[in-house]
C-alpha cells in the first residue's frame, strides 16, 4: 500500500471507535434456514452478528456455500422462498428490517439499501437500454421526472467512468463487456445514494485489471458518499486490499473479525490460518494447518464447534462446547476456545 492509503485506513479506524459514531447497520444473531419438504431444514446462517460504521468497508470472506449470498439476500429481504429468517435483527436507520413487510422493504431497497450483483449481464433486462434501467430506479425512489432521471443516469455513468455516457445510455446489456455491465450495475445500486451497499461477489468474474479499476472506483465513491459497505467475496486477497475490517465466515457463522492489518499480522482462528496457508508454497506448512481436512468421518457431535471436525488444534472442550464470538484482543473478535495468539 502507498503511504496515503495507509493513512486513510487509520483515519477510518479512528472514526470507527465506539465513542465517535453509531453503527449504520447492525446485524444481531441472524439465523436463516432453508426448509425443503421432506428433509431437515438446512441451517444456512447460525447466528450472524456484526456492525458497520458509516464510511467503513467490511469484507466477508468465505468459501462457496457457507452462506455469504444468503446473508446478502436476507438483509435485503429477497430470500428465495424455501428460506426463512428464523431469528435475529437487522437494525438499520433505527428500524429492524426483519420486521418489515414486503411493501416497506421495497421502499428501502434501492433507496437506502442497495446490492451490487454478480453476473450483471444475466440480471439486467435484455430488452431495455441501460440508461432507462438506471433512470427507472431513480424515478421509483426519488421524486423526479423523466428528464431529471435521465440526467441522473448520465451523471452516474460518468461517475462509474463509462466513456461517452450520452451515447451509452442507449446501449443494450448484451452490447456491453463484462466490465461495463458491472459498472452499470454499480451505477444502478448507487443512483439514489444509498446509505448501505452490499457487494455480492460482484467482481470475481472480471479480469484482474478490470477488477482493480472497479474496486478503486467503489472505494472512491464509498468515501465520497460516506456509505457503509459489506463486501462479500471468496478472494481473501481482494478483501485485504479493499476492506477496513475482515470477517471470516465458516458454515454459517462468523469465526473471526478483525481490522485487516491486524488480521494479516496474525490470524487468530485456525480456519483463518488455513485460508492463509492456501497461499504458501510449502506443503508442510499447509499441512500444519490443513492436515485435518482429510478427516472424512465426523467425530464431533451436535454440541461441538462447527470447525472441530477439520481443526488441527482440536481439544476435548471443542467437541463438547460450541464457542461464542468473543473479543480476544481489543478490536478483534474470534470464535474459538483456543485462539492462535502469536
Amino acid at each position, binding site marked *: 500500500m502507498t503511504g496515503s492509503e495507509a493513512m486513510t485506513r487509520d483515519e477510518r479506524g479512528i472514526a470507527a471507535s465506539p465513542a465517535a459514531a453509531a453503527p449504520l447497520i447492525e446485524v444481531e444473531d441472524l439465523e436463516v434456514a432453508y426448509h425443503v419438504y421432506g428433509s431437515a431444514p438446512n441451517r444456512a446462517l447460525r447466528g450472524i452478528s456484526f456492525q458497520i460504521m458509516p464510511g467503513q468497508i467490511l469484507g466477508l470472506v468465505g468459501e462457496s456455500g457457507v452462506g455469504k449470498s444468503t446473508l446478502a439476500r436476507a438483509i*435485503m429481504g*429477497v430470500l428465495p422462498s424455501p428460506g426463512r429468517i428464523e431469528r435475529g435483527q437487522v437494525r438499520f436507520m433505527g428500524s429492524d428490517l426483519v420486521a418489515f413487510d414486503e411493501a416497506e422493504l*421495497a*421502499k*428501502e*431497497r*434501492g*433507496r437506502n439499501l*442497495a*446490492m451490487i*450483483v454478480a*453476473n450483471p449481464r*444475466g*440480471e*439486467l*433486462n*435484455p*430488452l*431495455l437500454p441501460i440508461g432507462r434501467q438506471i433512470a*427507472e*430506479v431513480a424515478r*421509483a*425512489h426519488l421524486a423526479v421526472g423523466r428528464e431529471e432521471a435521465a440526467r441522473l443516469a448520465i451523471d452516474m455513468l460518468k461517475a462509474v467512468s463509462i466513456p461517452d455516457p450520452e451515447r451509452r445510455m442507449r446501449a*443494450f446489456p*448484451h452490447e456491453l463487456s463484462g466490465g461495463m455491465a458491472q459498472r452499470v450495475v454499480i451505477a*444502478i*445500486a448507487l443512483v439514489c445514494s444509498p446509505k448501505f451497499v452490499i457487494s455480492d461477489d460482484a467482481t470475481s468474474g472480471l479480469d484482474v485489471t478490470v477488477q482493480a479499476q472497479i474496486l478503486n472506483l467503489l472505494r472512491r465513491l464509498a468515501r465520497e458518499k460516506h456509505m457503509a459497505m459489506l463486501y462479500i467475496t471468496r478472494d481473501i486477497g481482494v478483501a485485504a486490499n479493499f476492506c477496513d475490517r475482515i470477517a471470516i465466515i465458516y458454515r454459517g457463522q462468523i469465526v473471526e473479525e478483525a481490522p485487516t492489518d491486524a488480521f494479516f499480522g496474525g490470524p487468530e482462528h485456525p480456519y483463518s490460518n488455513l485460508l492463509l496457508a492456501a497461499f504458501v508454497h510449502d506443503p508442510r506448512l499447509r499441512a500444519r494447518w490443513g492436515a485435518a481436512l482429510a478427516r472424512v468421518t465426523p467425530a464431533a457431535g451436535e454440541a461441538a464447534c462447527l470447525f472441530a471436525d477439520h481443526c488441527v488444534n482440536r481439544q476435548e472442550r471443542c467437541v463438547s462446547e460450541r464457542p461464542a464470538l468473543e473479543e480476544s484482543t481489543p478490536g478483534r473478535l474470534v470464535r474459538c476456545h483456543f485462539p492462535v495468539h502469536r
Partner: protein
Amino acid sequence: MGTLRYIGGRLLFLVPQIFGIVLVGFLLVKAVPGDPATLMLGPMATPDSIAKLRGELGLDKPLPVQFIIYINRIAHGDFGTSWQTTQPVVEDLAVRFPATLELVSFGLLVALAIGIPLGIVSATRRHRVLARIGDFYGLVAGALPDFWLALILIYVFYSLLGWMSSPIGRIDVMLLPPRTITGFYTIDSLVEGNWPAFRSSLAHLVLPVLTLGLVNAGPILKTTQSAMERMLQADFSLYARLCGLPEKLVMRHALRNALPSIVTIVSVLYGFLIGGAVLVEIVFSWGGAGQYAVQGVLNADFNPVLGFVIFSALFSLIVYLVVDLVYLAIDPRIRQ
C-alpha cells in the same frame, strides 16, 4: 437499411417457397380419389363424353405436363374455374377470402382480449378467484369443439333469448352488401357511410366471432400464462425487485419480455384459422374460403382447392414475415 434488405430477401424467398407449396399441393390434390369429369357429367354420362371432357380438361396428359400447364396459368393469374360455381377461382376467392379474414381477425382480437388478461392474472396469482377461473378456462377451452360451441351459442342467444339476428350469412338477407373495397363488410360499409349495412354485418359477426374468440382464447391464455410465469421468475425480474421497483413495473417488464411467445402463438393461430374456421363457417353459412375449399375437396373440384392452398399459404408466409419484423422491433439482441 439492413431491415429493408432483410424484408427484400424474405420477399424474394417467398417465390421458391410458394413453388414448393404449389408442387406439393398439386400432387396431393391429384392423389385424391374421384374423377372430376365423371362427377361433372353426372351418373348418366357415357364413357365417350367422359373421355371427351377429360381431354378438354387436360386430365389425360401426363402429370408433369399438367403441372407445367398449371404453373404457367397461375403465373398469368389464371387459377382456373370452379366447375361447381362456374366462376373463375380468383373471383370466388376474392369474395370468400376477405370473408374469412374478417371473421378470423375479429375472432382473434376477441381471443386476445380474453386470453391475455386472464393469462397474466393466472401467472401472477393476484386475484385468487380470477386465477382459478383462468386455470379452468385454459383446461376447458382446449377441449371445446368450435362447431359445438357455435350451435350452443345460436341455440341460447337466437332461439331461446332472441337477442341475436338470424345466424345465416354475413349480412341481413334483405340488405345489399356494401361496395367492395377491402372485402370486409364492416370496413366497406363504414367507408360508404352505409349505416344499415354496417349495423347488420356487425350483428351477424357477433356469434361466430364470439365462438372463435372463446375457443382460441384457450391457447393464448396458456401461452401467456406460461411465458409470464417464466419471465416473473427470471433473473431480471428478481433483480428489478431487488432494486425496489414497484411490482406493477416488474409485471410490465415481464410482459414485454413474454411478448415474443405470445406473438408466435397468435401468428400460428392466424395462419391456421384461415382454413381451420371452416366448421364455424359452415354452421353460420358464412361463405368463407375454408368452406369453399372443403366443397372442392368433396367434389374433386381441384381448382378451388389448389387456389385456396396457394392463397392461404401466401397469407401465412406474409404473417410470419410480419411476425419476424415484430420480433426485430421488440428484441434488440436479434438485431445483431
